[in-house]
Structure formats: C-alpha cells, structure tokens
C-alpha cells in the first residue's frame, strides 16, 4: 500500500489559495509526510503526462482552487476529475466564484474592449485583441479560449467537498486533510466549515439588536463605523447573517464588515438573496417611495450582495444578449 496521492491545482486563481497552503505547510509536515503529492504547480515539479499516465481514480484527493475561465482550465479539471477519488473545491473562487466572478456582470467582448482598447494607456489604434491562434512570421502561436462566463468548479465537474474562504484559513485546511486521511469525512457535497452563520460567532453579536430599524444605509467611504457595535445595526452592509462562519471573523477583527467570502449558510441557497432579505427587513418604512430612496443609498446592490458569490447565485451572470439567442 502506497501513501495516498494528493494533487493541488489552480485555475483562474490569484495564488492566494496557494499561499495559504504554503503558510500551512510547515505546520503539517507530518501530514505532508503521510501523503504523496503528485501535482502542485506552485511548489513542485510535475508533468501533465504523469497525470495522464495515472489510472483513473488513482489520486485520492485533488484540491482545486480558482474559478474556471478558459478552455485550458476546463480541460485540466476534467482530467483531474477522472483521475481523482475526491475533488475538493478549495477557496471562494472554486466554491462560489470569488471576487473575479463579478466579471459575470459583463462579457468577453466588454472585458477585451476595456483592457485593450479603452484604458487611457492603451496604444491600440488597430484594436488588436488576443487571438486563439496568431500567425507570426516564424509560425503559429496559440492561446486558450477565454470564456464569456466565470464558472464555479461544480458548474464544470462534480465536486465532492468545499473548503470555503478567500483564502481558506489554516485550521479548516488542516481539518479537511486529516478527515481525508482518517476517512472521517461528512456526507459528500458538504462544505467543510461550521454550519452556523457568522453573526452567531461574531464578537459584535451582543450589540446586534433582535429587531433592527434603520432609516439610511451608510457607506464606509464617507462615515466611520463604531468598531464596537454590529455593523448592520449601524446601517452598514454586513453579510454576516447570510454567511457561513469559520473564518475566525477576520474582517470584523480589522474593524471591517463581512463581505461573504465563506459563502451562504446551509439553509440559504443564494447568499445575495438571503442578505437582500436581511437588509430589506431592517429598513424602517412603509412608504414605497421612501423605501426606494433608502435603497438608492446602495448604488451597487450586485457588488454589495454578491461580492464573492455571483457565479454561484441563482442568476449566475448578467443576461447575455447574443449567446443564447
């Protein structure tokens, strides 16, 4: 019996999830010693053909971070799915789409136009855009295709477990690895973090009244919250009521409200919709015009409600005009 094989892979990722593993690595040497890492682009040598050569299912667990944005990433995760017993979606981007998932409010044409034509430093009179294939004097150069839509990992391949967070905190990563090694995993499909809402573990929860009533939403830009009082009660958007706990209340401890990187609580299918309900219930008015005026103090509801979770939301992306016509 060899040691269980483990793979780490990244898709459209910032590398922060990789750093999270590196940060942890020294602390889990005995765990690392108990597994055989067959793929880890950031830290170890690997070859694609080595992964191809493995029998299907030979990798005990693959930890995949980042969302799926290009054809190359899609092919990689499909390969890893075939080769792996378990696939763990690692971090917010793989789990719920992550901050770069906000790009689903736009499409490829808009993204290219902004990046290559419209930014004030662009020098691109010919409106040159990257191509999947380019003929240069010496031959052909190829690039993977850039999709219109950012997808979560489970929108591309079946996923067995989820490790939430941007990036996931060390204790949860360690627990997950130990549970895999010990065979003590919860049912498939589970998110490997506590089920409670962040509000239930928040150090400010005592100051959160049972019933909140606000006449205005405040913005961090132009007012200074009292760091000792629940942000929501003060009128700042905080996604604590809809967000799963387990992060260690990291943002709250830096005197900033939660933006939901841990994804929805188990009973909330859609983080933003749940948070929308929580925000609307606090607004203290019976007059539709006043309600509209108060809501207008949140000029970017999509960003406020779905900063991390847009691709995993019920709507998933902005309506495409042409693609489905």
């Amino acid at each position, binding site marked *: 019996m060899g040691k269980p094989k483990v793979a780490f892979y*990244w898709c*459209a*990722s*910032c*590398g*922060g999830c*990789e*750093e*999270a593993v590196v*940060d942890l690595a*020294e602390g889990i040497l005995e765990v690392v010693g108990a597994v055989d890492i067959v793929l880890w*682009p950031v830290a*170890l*040598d690997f*070859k*694609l*053909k080595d992964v191809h050569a493995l029998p299907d299912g030979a990798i005990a667990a693959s930890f995949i971070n980042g969302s799926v944005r*290009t054809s*190359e990433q899609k*092919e990689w995760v499909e*390969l890893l799915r075939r080769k792996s017993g378990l696939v763990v979606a690692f971090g917010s981007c793989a789990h719920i789409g*992550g*901050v*770069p998932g*906000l*790009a689903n*409010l*736009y499409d490829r044409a808009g*993204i290219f136009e*902004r*990046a*290559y034509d419209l*930014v*004030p*430093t*662009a*020098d*691109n009179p010919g409106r040159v855009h*990257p191509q999947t294939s*380019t003929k*240069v004097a*010496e*031959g052909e*150069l*190829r690039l993977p295709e850039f999709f219109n839509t950012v997808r979560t990992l489970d929108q591309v391949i079946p996923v067995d477990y989820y490790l939430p967070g*941007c*990036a996931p905190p060390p204790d949860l990563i360690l627990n997950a690895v130990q549970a895999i090694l010990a065979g003590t995993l919860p049912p498939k499909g589970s998110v490997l973090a506590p089920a409670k809402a962040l509000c239930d573990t928040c150090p400010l929860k005592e100051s959160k009244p049972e019933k909140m009533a606000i006449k205005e939403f405040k913005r*961090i*830009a*132009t007012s200074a919250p009292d*760091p000792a009082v629940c942000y929501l009660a003060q009128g700042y958007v905080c996604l604590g009521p809809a967000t799963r706990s387990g992060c260690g209340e*990291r*943002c709250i401890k*830096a*005197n*900033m409200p939660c933006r939901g990187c841990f994804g929805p609580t188990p009973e909330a299918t859609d983080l933003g919709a749940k948070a929308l309900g929580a925000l609307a219930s606090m607004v203290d008015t019976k007059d539709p015009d006043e309600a509209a005026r108060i809501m207008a103090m949140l*000029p*970017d509801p999509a*960003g406020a409600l779905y*900063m991390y979770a847009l691709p995993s939301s019920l709507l998933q992306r902005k309506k495409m005009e042409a693609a489905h016509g």
Partner: protein
Amino acid sequence: MAKRITIDPVTRLEGHGKIEIFLDDAGNVANAYLQIPELRGFEKFAEGRLVEDMPRITPKICGVCPTAHHMASGKTVDAVYHVDPPPAAKKIRELINSAFAVEDHTLHFYFLGGPDFVVGPEAPAAERNILGVIGKVGVEAATRVIGIRRRLRAIITALGGRVIHPVCNVPGGVSKGVTKEMREEFIAAAEDAVEFAKFTLGVFGKIVLANKSYVDLVVGDIYLHRTYYMGLVDAQNRLNLYDGMIRVVTPSGKEFAKFPPSEYVEHIAEHVEPWSYIKFPYLKKVGWKGFTDGETSGVYRVAPLARLNAAEGMATPAAQEEYERMYATLGGKPAHNTLAYHWARLVELLYAAERLRELARDEEILDPHIRTLPTATPTEGVGVVEAPRGTLYHHYKTDERGVVTEANLIVATVNNSAAISMSIARAARKLITNGEVRDGLLNMVEMAFRAYDPCFACATHAAGQTPLIVTVRDARGAPLRVLRRD
C-alpha cells in the same frame, strides 16, 4: 525543410506562461515569444462598483502581493475623495507595506530565485530548491527564514485582518489603529528583521560574491539590457517603496522624467499583441520600437534593480552602505545586468527592514486619529506604490456617488513584460546555435526570467505565482526536454 526547434509548453493544456522559440533555416534563433494565456478583466468589472470596495476587490488580482494592491488602491481612493489621511494612518500603511516587502523579498531569495545562486547555477535541478538552500545555509538559518516570515505576516494580520487580502484601507485612512502592546511586538519583529536582512546579505556575500564564476555571471553580458529604469523616489531622490514621485532614468543614467503619479498617462502607453493576454508598456515619449533595448526604445524596467538605478540612494543608513558597495562592485550606475536584480532585492530587503523599524519606533503610530473622513465629491484618482515586483499603478474614475465608471491598472510585472521577453530571447540567442540546444540553455533561460521574480498572476490580473513550462522539441515535435519555473 530546414531543421526547426520549437520551444512550446508540454502541451497546450499546461501552465500559465509559455515560451515559444523559433529557429531560422540555419538553426539559429529567429525569435522568441513569452505568452501569457490568461486574463481576468478587473478593469472591466470594477465598473459599477463602489470605489471604497476597490481596496477589497483589487488584492484578488494577486494573492502573492495582495498587500501592494491594497496599498495602491487605498491611495487611489484617497485621491478619488480628495482626502489626505492623518499622519498615523499613512505610517500604519507604510509599516504594513514595509513588513510585506521584507517577507516577500525573503520568500523570493530563499525559495524562488535565490536557489540559482545559493546552491549554484550549475547544480543539478533537483537541488536547486529550498532544500538545497537549507543544505547550503544550514537548518538553523532556514528556521530563521520561516520564523521571520511568520512574524512579519502576523503584523499584516494584526492590522489588516487577513494576511492574504488585507482589508484595512478605507478612503482617508485605515480602519484599525496600533495599540501599545502591538507596537512592542512590531519593534521587536522589526529589529529581528534588520538583523535578518544583514544576515541574508552576508549569505549572499559569502556564497555569491566570493565566487568568481558567479560574479562573472552577474557582470557578464548574457542577461544585459540597456533599458530605461523606473521607480518611486522621495524628495531627495532616494528610493521609496510607498510614496513619492516616479523617476525614470535613461540607459546612461540621466534623469529622463520625474512626475507625480497623477500624470502617468502622459508617460506610459501599452502596446498590444494578438498572441498574449498581457500588454507591453513603454515610455510614451520614446515610443514603442518593438522588443529592443537602448535609448531609442521605450522599453523600461521596474522592480529592485530598476528602483536602485532610478534613485540616487537609500533613505536608511545600512541600506545606503550596501547600495554603495553594490554599485562599486558592478562598476557604476546604472547596472544593466538582469542578474543584479537578486542583489538589488537584498539591498531593498535591508532598506524595508530598517524602514519598518523606524516606523515601529515612531510614537506617532499610536495616535488614535487614523482617519480623515472624506467630505468632497469623489471624482478621479491615481495611486502608486512600489510592489516587490515593480511600480504598481491604480487609476479610478467615479460618478458623483462614488461608483466606479472607469478603471486602469498597470501592475508590477506587466511593466517588465517586454524586458522579460527580451531577456528570454537574448539568452536563447546566446545559447542556441546551428540548431544545437546546449545543455545549459534551459537553466539559463529559467534564470533570465527568475531574476525578475515575475508574477504573471498580477500581470494578467489573472493567475498566481505562475509556473512556466517550456518544452524543447525537435523538428518533428518530439519533446527533448522539459523546463518549468515554480
């Protein structure tokens, strides 16, 4: 048909960076391309966001240098709201940024780029890694590396909430102040960091500078590019990582431009190629002349060596000494050899540690007044810091509600994209002749870009510390050799 050697990725599936080298009929290098196969579109989806969310959004560009993005973004939102943070807030930000610079440069020297030197360029690839470094510098030193990184990352966590993607910067200041107890620890950590930086320079001196073949490599011409250099400087033209004016010097070291961040559009333009998702910035007033160096080409470089070249000295005493020693050894300023980036990085390591100590010792960081609340209507702003990998530009425009209408980002590694491509091509040209791939090629190519510590994550606003895979193929496409950079 003439024999042709192509260097391409192991397969189209693999990796986030790839190199294509084409040979001519005689088997000499006709051209080399560095391709970045990804993009995430931050400039686009910034549109419609609240500008105060940008310091929380933009760090996700890169989990390797999230702190730098958080700082640039914080300075940009200040500018958008026309607000000047109180002194304590500025110092807290710079303190976080300094702690980050020390831990990131440390990571590069010991884990990423340093192994080439510490273990040696000719050592077998299997030893050119952190384990090889430990073998060379000793376990005790390795423990010290891990310890100091942990301590510095704890400073960022204490103030920023999260070390990967801190959240403390808000328009006009920071969300969290420094307590007396925190300061005690910061001072102790900073003192440790200064000693550690000196120790690291000592390691470099003993292992690299004492070895003639390494020194020859550093001062030799394989990696030499005569380019323009860019970096932030303070009022006395000394290097600064957090604030100041942007100074550009010519390949002969003369001041070419000095401008405040808000004027960057006058000075920088970006060229686009259809074969990469990355853009190629150049100096607008010189012009894009293709992938070539010299006074007439607008290609410029950023990051440690460029910053030292663009400055006239260091603002802290021990770093100044090291700076002088470095240029004396390299034979004056500017230094054009790409491998000197490693040395310059260590001079900066010492500067950042000394600066961290100054800031931690400064009583003013205890001042509870850490925020100036914005009152003006938000409009437009530019914020610049020096990230470990180079000058980082953020630029946002908003409507009167503070909703972003346009954003532009020129991130550290992107500034160097043309130069990195050139360095790879140059190394390839030097090493491939008559269709023969010399053994040293792969490591030499690897060293060419490793010196820049490139982060294609940032570059494409895309992926992280990006592995780069190169396959050398013969004319029939059969793989001869595989190279990768972690």
